[in-house]
């Protein structure tokens, strides 16, 4: 229990750094923050008004504290572009992004881990080389290339799947799935390459251990040896790689939402960048970073479950 607390506390400095970085985005960019927020056509009087009302005339550290306090209360400010509270904008768009992320991770884990395990088991065979080749290819194709490449045969030439767009899960699960198939596969490919490699490396090391030999000596079939005995021992590095790879997934989601016109947080990011809508940019970076930190925290805490030897 004490360890759990300790790990949670350890994430605070990290979030603090992110917060400082995000906060300074507005103040580091060229130009007067108040002018940027007030808009291109604002008069000097309006700019001054904006400056006061947003507290931009206060010293920096005060601004920072005010900003953090508002964050803690869930107030991410208001979009410069559309005047809607940022919190509301985010909530509106969180479902598609979550769906895409969740599906991608599901696909990745269920494909990459068995692939990597089998590649390790049949090390240096044709299957192994094939899996490794696929992994290298997976790393080399940018996400949007894969997205477009998939679009052609599955959506444009045939009518198997919709080309773009998104349907909510709560509205129509079947169509929700159909709209997400191609995007999730695009996002997963890079992640699968990474996790398959990591699984293979970790399993190779485990498979050379004595207890695997003992398992064989007991007469267990190969599948049991591989997935019951070996895999759990190999899991710590694999799970760690999954945690780190979440950053890749988030990047992939941002791009894929653009390619497939999915109205999620990724799309919002891109649009806000182009419009220099700072409050939104800040909020999204914070949300994604927080998600990343949270997932890695959970993974950290899961180590004990996976390997009882680990002592805190």
């Amino acid at each position, binding site marked *: 229990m004490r360890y759990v607390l300790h790990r949670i506390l350890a994430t605070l400095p990290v979030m603090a750094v992110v917060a400082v970085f995000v906060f300074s985005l507005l103040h580091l960019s060229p130009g007067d923050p108040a002018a940027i927020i007030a808009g291109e056509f604002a008069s000097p009087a309006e700019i001054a008004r904006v400056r006061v009302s947003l507290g931009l005339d206060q010293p920096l550290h005060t601004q920072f504290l005010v900003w953090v306090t508002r964050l803690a209360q869930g107030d991410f400010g208001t979009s410069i572009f559309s005047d809607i509270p940022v919190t509301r904008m985010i909530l509106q768009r969180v479902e598609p992004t979550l769906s895409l992320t969740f599906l991608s991770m599901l696909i990745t884990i269920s494909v990459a881990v068995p692939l990597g395990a089998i590649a390790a088991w049949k*090390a*240096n065979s044709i299957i192994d080389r094939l899996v490794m080749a696929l992994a290298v290819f997976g790393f080399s194709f940018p996400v949007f290339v894969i997205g477009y490449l998939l679009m052609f045969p599955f959506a444009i030439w045939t009518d198997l799947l919709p080309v773009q767009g998104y349907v909510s899960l709560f509205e129509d699960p079947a169509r929700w799935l159909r709209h997400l198939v191609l995007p999730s596969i695009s996002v997963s490919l890079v992640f699968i390459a990474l996790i398959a490699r990591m699984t293979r490396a970790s399993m190779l090391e485990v498979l050379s*251990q*004595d*207890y695997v*030999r*003992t*398992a*064989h*000596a*007991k*007469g*267990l*079939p190969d599948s049991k040896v591989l997935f019951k*005995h070996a895999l*759990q*021992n190999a899991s710590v590095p694999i799970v760690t790689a999954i945690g780190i790879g979440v950053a890749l997934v988030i990047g992939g989601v941002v791009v894929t939402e653009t390619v497939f016109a999915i109205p999620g947080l990724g799309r919002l990011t891109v649009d806000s960048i182009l419009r220099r809508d700072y409050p939104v940019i800040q909020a999204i970076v914070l949300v994604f970073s927080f998600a990343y930190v949270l997932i890695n925290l959970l993974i950290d805490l899961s180590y004990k479950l*996976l*390997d*009882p*030897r680990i002592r805190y």
Partner: protein
Amino acid sequence: MTISSAGMQDAGPVAVETAEPVLRVRDLQTHFFTRDAVVRAVDGVSYEVARGETLGVVGESGCGKSISALSILRLIPSPPGRIVGGEIRFHDQNLLELPMSEMRALRGNRISMIFQDPMTSLNPVMTVGAQLGEALQLHQGLSRAEAEDQAAEMLKMVRISEPERRLREYPHQLSGGMRQRVMIAMALCCKPEVLIADEPTTALDVTVQAQILELINDLREKLGTAVVMITHDLGVVAETAQRVVVMYAGRKVEEALVEDLFDNALHPYTRGLMAAIPSHAPESGDGGRLAEIPGIVPSLGAAMTGCSFAPRCAHATEVCHNEYPPLEEARSRHTVACWHWREFAGDKARP
């Protein structure tokens, strides 16, 4: 410890003369095919073991004794290694011709193996109970609860205290001796007919070694298991085996009843091993210096003509370097592969 037949502990009653062998290894050849050379780890070895007896297989590291044992259960890692010749008869079946599914049915069930290092040989993320119960569930079709009860019984049989508690523990929570007991329990839980013990005490403290050996002896008597005891330690052989096979460079160089071997070793290598045992009473009057066998074990990849021990043998002659000596029966149940064994036999040789 001083080695002589008088000081040996009784390794247990057994009908030595007439027992029908349960396991017969005949002319086994296991080779490893690496990029640079073919390593002939086991190059024509034969031995057999009968019900209720312990056969000791003795030799230095690298002589092929462990590989011969792994070959019996066909656990040789197959990309580099392969069993290229011979047969292994278990009752009347040749194990080398069995399909893998039948081989797996035998493993852990009618032929079991225990390994040298119990810490690395037990799965660190599974509880003791789970690992023990696995073979029972697999081979005897027990349910999980039944397997757990049986597992507790097995732990009692190997003299582990508080068996119910141990079932829920992980290997790293046990001491070295306890872990080896768990391995023994795992190997014997289906009451196998053959137990192969590959250096079971090498990784343990000296005090624990004796306990483990005694445990194996007792269980052998109780269950009538045939035991193949692989070791580099002549002391272990003295304590547990009725018959001994000495291996060198992938071949058998001598085989005898254990008292006979210790009293009248005939092969220069065996004699060298005996002489190298440190003793408190320096019989040779040499000032207590350890006798050693000069030279090193030959690389098993190099092609060999002649006796593989010839380069290190003080008594080697021309024929020794040119032709490999065949196994001859020097006395009753005592075979040796040496051109000059008669010179060592003194007047006890057969006419």
